[in-house]
């Protein structure tokens, strides 16, 4: 199935598993201008992201509105699924939800040792429950 890899600002790893699993897929990133303006994102962050992207072979970098740009790219590349990474970021999640209306979306989860979703509201409780898992080399 033709796929499109979409990087988001929380997942800029050129060696991520998804890149290996979809080695032939075009890879894209969108600088969302409205987001940058609304949250007054500083130039240092934009440059950091851009420099990180340059390490991803054959990356296509766009500026525009995220969902509209991705819809256009899906059409241009005749893709029928978007591959991306999971993040708790509610803004990125809302773009992902919107995209789901138009295409398949495969998200690779964040990896860490203790992911009990009934997370306690104090770190000390969380740590007491999961320090072993965190401190064990797997």
């Amino acid at each position, binding site marked *: 199935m033709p796929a499109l890899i979409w990087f988001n*600002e*929380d*997942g*800029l*790893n050129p*060696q991520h598993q998804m890149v290996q699993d979809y080695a032939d897929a075009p890879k894209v990133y*969108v*600088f969302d*201008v409205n987001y*940058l*303006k609304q*949250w*007054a*994102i*500083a*130039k*240092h*962050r*934009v*440059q*950091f*992201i*851009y*420099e*990180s*992207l*340059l*390490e991803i072979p054959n*990356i296509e*970098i*766009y*500026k*525009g509105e995220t969902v509209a*740009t991705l819809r*256009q790219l899906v059409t241009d590349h005749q893709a029928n699924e978007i591959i991306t*990474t999971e993040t*708790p*970021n*509610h803004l990125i999640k809302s773009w992902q939800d919107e995209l789901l209306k138009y295409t398949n979306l495969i998200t690779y989860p*964040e*990896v*860490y*040792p*203790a*992911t*009990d*979703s009934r*997370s306690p*509201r*104090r*770190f*000390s409780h969380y*740590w007491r429950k*999961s*320090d072993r898992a*965190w*401190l*064990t*080399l*797997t």
Partner: protein
Amino acid sequence: MKRLRTDLEGREAIADYLQAEFSFLENTGVLAPHPGGRSAGLERLEQFQLEKYGKQRNFLDGEVGQLSPYISRGCLELEEVRQWALRHGKSNSVEKFVSELAWRAFFHLVYEEEGDRILKDMEKPKVSMRRHQTRLPEDIASGETGIPSMDTFIAMLKETGYLHNHTRMYLASYIVHFRRVSWRAGADWMYGLLIDGDFASNHLSWQWVASTFSHKPYIFNRENLERYAGSVLPGDPRKGDPFNYSYEELSEQLFGSEYQPERSRTSGSYR
């Protein structure tokens, strides 16, 4: 939509190009000390002297990872950094460092569950915040508060896009408790300026400082500031110093007599 160039070489050239493409960005005129990319992140990992971390991490000139730009932007995976640390064998430094990585995961778990509700008070504040301003005062935004230490921290934030954890705590506490500004106004501002800006770690830490995601407000005094930050500070005038009090006095001044503080805090650790 517009496709951007990917053939630029050199950080200066990139800075000029991005300034032209995104003309609304404020031009700081300097390059951030942390270049983007996984290879720079791996290099940073190699330089990081983990064995010093346990003892030095609370000091502004102490050894810390400076990895958050790389971890938050996903250039390095949290899990690979954890494994890297554990391969050093057991020590206080390793355990401390891994527990800090776990803080990040903890905040993410809460954010995953709560979604954008983390942008509002998670709990009732433990001190009154009813009269806090909802907009960030201009002198804070521009780093012209007139308190050299705080202005230095703000300048560091703008010039580098990175701050030491203790510095973030000082600044947040100054803004929320000493200046009586709502944590949300401060959090939104800092989120945009940090390279590692992350709603979970940032907004929930601001709430931790404010006491809407913790048992008590976080405050600091002159003694604490001098001990942990003295080496990088320009020196504040002693006259009218808002920080030069005991914790009991500060608590009375900032929160009134109904609030009973616990024993004073001596380090930059969360509980």
